[in-house]
């Protein structure tokens, strides 16, 4: 069977698109990485089809034999399917005949995918199993004699799973996903995905008129949390005096923001309040159940927001558990697919608790609205105005991990990005 092979050549000469140069100062990020179509095309090749594990979905989205979902590797539409034996396959959502994107439902169950144009039929491993009129009609027409069905399967990706999370890669000699995450990130990853059976609660989908990297940055940026998200500070979920850690992998591409919610109402120093617009220490939610936290993992942290390069964010915040799949759609837009889940052992009360708490996230969530709006503002500024490099200069690269007013993780990500992209 055909496997999509990475087209990235490690030694390929590096050609920066004409007229573009990376600024000499490490604290600066050039704005053309968010807007240039050539850069976006190169990212597909070097990042999403390169030496990386792409997140494509959760096993609880395809719990039964022959279940499938639509998904994406980078910008490429794929199908994630579980075969009758339980194995998971990821293949292009593109007919090997004329190229039609054949799978048109968000999710379903079936052993066969029939391209509606000429009924070429594939199984859920991506194998071509039937071509109508292959021998023609009354001895006329049809496929040439030498036609080999086996050479026209759907192109598949290499697949791995870790505790219910499905990853795909075009690279044939990838390290294990555990090695890819690294020990520090893996430890926190396993508090969200301990291997306990997961139960899908539903999917949110939204577009966002911003470059996909802005979303990676946003979740590597603890600086914005209390400034943009005053819901957190107003209702006492998070303040800068909370104990927090910002941990990255060795290469700086993955990141974990961990935080511990204070018991009871948080205390905020006077000088901090002055810096945090609209802090309302006295506010109480009318319905306090939304803030309830039922300890369900063995971790000192009540929340952890993880970004896995290039396209996954996984979140545990109180009893909210979700993944976000980042799908680039050209330089100026991304699509976000949120999978929200609980545990198979949840009783009805726990499911409802999670549903209530999930008002905080998603594209109508108290934090979700703000992140999406802020990133749209950034892209508007980048595309409409005069070129100017962005700044990421807060903090220090050798600072202790409990520093929160920092852009260390963003700088680290772009060091790695430059290496992969050859900029």
């Amino acid at each position: 069977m055909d496997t999509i092979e990475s087209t990235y050549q490690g030694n390929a000469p590096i050609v920066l698109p004409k007229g573009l140069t990376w600024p000499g100062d490490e604290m600066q990020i050039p704005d053309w990485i968010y807007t240039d179509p050539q850069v976006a095309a190169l990212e597909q090749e070097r990042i999403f089809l390169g030496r990386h594990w792409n997140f494509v979905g959760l096993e609880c989205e395809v719990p039964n034999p022959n279940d499938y979902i639509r998904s994406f590797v980078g910008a490429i539409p794929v199908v994630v399917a579980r075969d009758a034996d339980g194995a998971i396959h990821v293949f292009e959502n593109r007919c090997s005949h004329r190229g039609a994107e054949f799978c048109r439902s968000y999710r379903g169950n079936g052993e066969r995918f029939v391209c509606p144009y000429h009924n070429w039929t594939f199984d859920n491993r991506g194998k071509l199993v039937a071509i109508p009129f292959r021998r023609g009609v009354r001895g006329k027409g049809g496929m040439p004699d030498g036609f080999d069905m086996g050479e026209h399967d759907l192109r598949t990706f290499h697949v791995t799973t870790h505790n219910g999370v499905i990853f795909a890669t075009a690279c044939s000699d990838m390290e294990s996903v555990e090695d890819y995450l690294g020990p520090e990130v893996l430890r926190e990853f396993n508090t969200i995905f301990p291997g306990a059976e997961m139960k899908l609660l539903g999917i949110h989908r939204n577009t966002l008129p911003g470059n996909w990297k802005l979303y990676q940055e946003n979740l590597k940026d603890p600086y914005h949390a209390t400034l943009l998200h005053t819901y957190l500070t107003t209702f006492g979920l998070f303040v800068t005096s909370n104990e927090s850690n910002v941990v990255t992998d060795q290469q700086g591409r993955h990141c974990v923001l961990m935080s511990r919610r204070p018991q009871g109402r948080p205390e905020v120093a006077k000088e901090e309040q002055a810096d945090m617009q609209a802090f309302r220490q006295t506010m109480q939610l009318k319905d306090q159940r939304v803030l309830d936290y039922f300890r369900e993992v063995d971790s000192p942290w009540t929340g952890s927001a993880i970004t896995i390069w290039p396209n996954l964010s996984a979140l545990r915040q109180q009893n909210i558990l979700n993944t976000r799949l980042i799908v680039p759609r050209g330089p100026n837009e991304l699509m976000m697919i949120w999978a929200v889940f609980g545990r198979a052992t949840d009783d009805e009360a726990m499911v409802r608790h999670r549903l209530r708490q999930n008002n905080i996230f998603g594209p109508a969530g108290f934090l979700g609205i703000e992140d999406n709006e802020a990133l749209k503002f950034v892209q508007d500024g980048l595309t409409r105005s005069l070129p100017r490099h962005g700044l990421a200069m807060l903090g220090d690269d050798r600072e202790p991990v409990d520093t929160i007013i920092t852009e260390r993780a963003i700088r680290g990500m772009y060091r790695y990005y430059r290496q992969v992209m050859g900029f």
Partner: protein
Amino acid sequence: MPATRAAFRAVRADVEEFLFEYAALLERGEIARWPDFFTDDAVYQVVARDNAESNLPLGLIYAEGKGMLQDRAYALIHTEMYAPRYIQLRMSNTRVIAVDEPYITAETSYLLLETLIDEPTRVQQTGKSFDVIRRVGDQLLFKERKCVYDTVLINNCLVFPV
């Protein structure tokens, strides 16, 4: 169900009047009064159609009780950052499904249009609402309001409720 066609139409007229007042309030941006259209024990949900049809319970918005609606209203007024916008909430094709006093079950199509500064008007959401409305004296209140939206791929974010 009401005995006569005229009585049935009178119920539909009551429901429409109630829905139109609700839409007008949201269009005026009087979000602080939005929870007043609900009973204390109301359940309010905005659910993507594909989730609804797959029996997945996740809500884009999921509120049990008026308190949660008041908390959302407070957040929208005082804590949330979003670009200013005008909204138009069109409601049509109201059908009264059942009347079991004091409860009325009705279905209504809706269309939410959004207009941001320097941007053309866009469809933010369209779908159908499944409402259980309670008559309290001469007033109607939502006991249940479930908005199931076809616009599964949301344009950035839904700021104001439908």
